[in-house]
């Protein structure tokens, strides 16, 4: 299965600033997704990262707040912009390989906004 390197693993940020999270995969994948896991909650899909085009956002998430890039088949970034304490969550990258049905998740980025 694909191996994901997600960075940073954790960060503490000041409100009003932005943080960019990176997701690097060791093999080409078809789909890349970004999820948010708020404290004590389940995973919520933020968006699908599309190679070379704008990401597809789920209801309640907008590009201005969560800009996403995916320049190639193995790399994507998620930026959390103009952060507030409500953005404190774990953010996870997930991928679907070119073959198979499995979904692999990164180890997550634990973000605390103060």
């Amino acid at each position, binding site marked *: 299965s694909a191996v994901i390197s997600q960075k940073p693993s954790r960060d503490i940020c000041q409100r009003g600033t932005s943080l960019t999270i990176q997701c690097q995969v060791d093999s080409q994948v078809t789909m890349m997704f970004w999820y948010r896991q708020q404290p004590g909650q*389940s995973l919520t899909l933020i968006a699908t990262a599309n190679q070379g085009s704008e990401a597809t956002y789920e209801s309640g998430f907008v590009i201005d707040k969560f800009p996403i890039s995916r320049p190639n088949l193995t790399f994507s970034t998620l930026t959390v912009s103009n952060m507030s304490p409500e953005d404190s969550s774990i953010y996870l990258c997930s991928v679907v390989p070119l073959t198979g049905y499995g979904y692999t998740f990164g180890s997550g980025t634990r973000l605390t906004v103060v």
Partner: protein
Amino acid sequence: AQSVAQPEDQVNVAEGNPLTVKCTYSVSGNPYLFWYVQYPNRGLQFLLKYITGDNLVKGSYGFEAEFNKSQTSFHLKKPSALVSDSALYFCAVRPLSNDYKLSFGAGTTVTVRA
């Protein structure tokens, strides 16, 4: 629309006893079903999946799950639980279509006491 329900927030069992974590789903058509486990401060780890075929699916760490179409359930089971199985468990579903989006249940916290 697809959805997943995990009716129990917490499951507590003694080590050596059988462990069951319940999951029911709602999806149009036939589903892909998944179980993931999340240990503290870690990402999601894949346990098993049902795509098609045998209703009893065997996965990692001695876990298995049974797909029951009539009851729309996909309960996770382990014959003899270990203390190390204590973690947060998520059931997830996606429809048998080109839509790769996973929907997650709320999660069940499993505590196995020695």
